[in-house]
Structures are given as structure tokens and as C-alpha cells.
């Protein structure tokens, strides 16, 4: 019972967002680590994929857990968006934000939905394709300028989403203290840039034919 009321409460929902968000970020880390094999060569990457798929249990638990977490994040986020629109039922005539860098926070729902779109496309092509030829699939895919661009734009969207999301997650967990706030504010740049760098360079490498 207490759990239901926790989940239904405003702070409970914040926690769900933060918790699911942090799982997704952890997944991003592992994903980034896997992808980083591409910096070495496609064959290494293919070996990594093969290795991964030789443990169907891991894959199944991972993908189901991930889908669930992702769904929770998306559904709760959308719910919050709708509820919050209702709470501010009248709009202001003049809309000025008092804080200067509010673009990321005020567009979370849009960057989020864009990422959702991206993931649907990405998974349908990559995850549900043939794992045995994954290396070939992506190297062909990224040779197209438009696909690469789409990916890069999606990664930028992800970075923007994370730049608010990462800080927001910590704030929700109650991590806000003058002695480490400067570190946190630096991390809010470093973390998204890190992902952008790893994920973003891959299509570029392919595009410029720099993958062996």
C-alpha cells in the first residue's frame, strides 16, 4: 500500500523518473563500452556481438528489463507532462524564463519523444536484424549520409536530454550540497558530452571510412 501511495505522489513520480533514468544511463554506459570496440575494428565489434548473443538468458533479461524501464520512463514522463499542463491551466501572455539556460529542461518531453522515435527505428533495424551480420549492417547503414546525420542529431538530442536529466536525477535523489555542487555542475556537461563523443564519432568514422 505504501508503495502505491509513494508511486502516486508527486515526489514518488520524480523518483521513478530519476531511478529509471539512472538505469537507462547505466545501460548507455555498457552500450557505449560495447560500441567502443568499433574504434578498434568492425571484426572486434562483431566478436563482441557474437559473444553477447551466445548468452540468450542475459540478452532476454537485459532486453526485457530495459524495455520495461524504458516504458516506465516514457509513460511516467508523459503522465507528468500532461498533469503539469493541467496544473498550469492558464498560459501567460508573455513567456520569459527567469533562468538563462532553461532550454534543456523545458524541452525534456520533446527531446524525450525524439529519442523514443530514434530508439524505435534503431532497434527495429539493429536489434531485430540479423546479429550475425551486425557489423556489416551498420557499416552499410552509416555509409549513407542521411542515416549518419539522423543518428548524430539523435545523439545531440540525447545529450541535451541528459544535460538536464543527469543533474535532475541527482537533485531528485536529494544530492545537492554546496561542497559538491560545482562538481555536479561540471558533470552535467561532461556526462552528455562523453556519450555524444563516443556515439557520435562512430557514424562519422564510418562516413569518412576510417573504420578498419
Amino acid at each position, binding site marked *: 500500500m505504501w508503495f502505491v501511495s509513494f508511486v502516486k505522489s508527486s515526489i514518488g513520480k520524480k523518483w521513478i523518473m530519476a531511478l529509471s533514468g539512472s538505469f537507462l544511463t547505466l545501460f548507455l554506459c555498457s552500450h557505449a563500452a560495447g560500441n567502443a570496440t568499433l574504434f578498434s575494428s568492425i571484426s572486434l565489434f562483431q566478436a563482441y556481438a557474437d559473444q553477447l548473443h551466445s548468452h540468450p538468458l542475459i540478452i532476454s533479461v537485459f532486453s526485457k528489463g530495459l524495455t520495461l524501464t524504458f516504458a516506465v520512463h516514457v509513460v511516467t514522463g508523459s503522465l507528468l507532462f500532461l498533469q503539469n499542463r493541467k496544473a498550469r491551466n492558464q498560459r501567460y*501572455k508573455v513567456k520569459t524564463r527567469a*533562468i538563462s539556460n532553461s532550454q534543456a529542461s523545458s524541452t525534456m518531453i520533446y527531446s524525450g519523444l525524439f529519442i523514443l522515435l530514434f530508439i524505435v527505428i534503431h532497434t527495429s533495424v539493429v536489434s531485430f536484424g540479423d546479429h550475425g551480420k551486425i557489423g556489416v549492417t551498420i557499416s552499410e547503414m552509416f555509409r549513407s549520409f542521411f542515416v549518419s546525420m539522423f543518428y548524430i542529431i539523435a545523439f545531440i538530442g540525447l545529450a541535451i536530454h541528459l544535460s538536464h536529466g543527469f543533474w535532475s536525477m541527482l537533485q531528485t535523489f536529494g544530492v545537492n550540497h554546496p561542497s559538491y555542487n560545482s562538481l555536479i555542475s561540471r558533470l552535467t556537461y561532461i556526462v552528455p558530452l562523453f556519450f555524444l563523443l563516443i556515439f557520435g564519432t562512430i557514424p562519422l568514422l564510418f562516413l569518412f571510412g576510417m573504420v578498419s
Partner: protein
Amino acid sequence: MTTKSIDLSLEIWRQKDSRTTGVFESYQLKSISADMSFLEMLDVLNEKLTREGLDPVAFDHDCREGICGMCGAVVNGIAHGPEPETTLCQLHMRHFCNGDTIVIEPFRSRAFPIRKDLIVDRSALDRIIQAGGYISVNTGGAPDGNAIPIPSATAELAMDAAACIGCGACVASCPNGAAMLFTGAKISQLSLLPQGRPERKERAMAMVSAMDKEGFGNCTNERECEAVCPKGISIRNIARMNREFVKASFFG
């Protein structure tokens, strides 16, 4: 002191009562002294409207010293206007330029129904306090004031949170109409102080649930509340409330 004066165009939300819908009306004011406060500028407008047989603009105000939290409106899109850490009554006209158009709107939020023009009903905030924003001690029988030493830094932190004047600008400015800064400030103040510890769990649960019931939105960490707060209350208090609430929910 400057004696500069400016001419202004005002666009003000006019709404007869809670049942009718409002509209913006435009007014022109000439020779407004730059030394006037924003509310004095509205006084001048109201005197003019009254003399012309028109209905003066209703707005809340009382202390005009930036402490009672009675005043407040959204000025050109920002609650309490453009000056940081300043209530509307302490905002002076020298921060505007000759020829400016100023759009003045009431604090808008589902939880703050408009009563007339710029006057809104903020009693939802009182109900949040009634749910648990206190320490349950009856008058009499309190131990000596020095019985519990409180580190001066803790007292200062509690004071930072306690400085909230309950004006509602945080709600008005929050894109989600959330009241977390207000609620967080009170929960923080009382959970920081040893006197408030015995009830901290019940308090966090009760106040957050009262806040949710009133129809405030959910915080998505937009930080707008902190930026407009006339008392500079930090969202660190929201972080503290999050901790208090989770602790109370899981280990209550």
C-alpha cells in the same frame, strides 16, 4: 536620488471575478517618477482610473516592504518583475525605460484561482502548512531556550529556509505550477532543527500529500522557482524534502 520620469504603456489583466473570463486592457501613464515603487505606479494608475470613473485595478499588497508576501504579479513574464530577489512592492520604476510596455498578469496556476484582476487565492499554501508545517508543542512547558544547543550553522540553514514569505511566486513561475519550493522550505526548516526531528516523518508525508491534493503540478527541476524567489530560497530545500519524503515512505 534621481528625479527622472518616464512614460509607460501598461497591459493589465482585468477580470471581474472568479466566474468571468478576463481580458487584457491597455493604459497609458505619463511622467511616472523613477523613484516610485511598482505598486505606487499602480496607485497612480488607480487614482487616474477612479477620477475617470473607471474601475481601479485590484491588487494585493500590505507591508510594501517585501516581507509579508501579500503582493505579487507577473511582470513581462517574470513573477515579481525583472529584479532578482525583489518583491513587486520593492521593485522600483527606475528599472524600466521611457516608452516601455509593461504586461502585468496575475499569478497563474490551477491551485491559485483568480479572484479579481491581479488578486488570486493562495489559501492552498496555508492548507499545506496546516497539514504539518509545525512542531506540535502546546503553549507552556517548553524547556529552557538554551536546553538544546543548535550549531549556529544549522540555525542559519534553518533560517535560510524559514525566510520564505509564502508569496507564491515559485508556483506562479514554475512551468508546472508546482509548490515544491514552498513546501520544501518548511519541511527543511523543521527537519534541520532538533526540535522538529520527532515529527519529521509524519510531517514530510502529510505535507507532500496535502500539496498533491491541492492540484499543484509536479516538480521537474526547472529551477524557475529559485530564480524568481524574492527571498533567494534555494532548491537545495527541495532536494532535502525529496530525501525526507523518501526516508519517510520507505522507513516511516
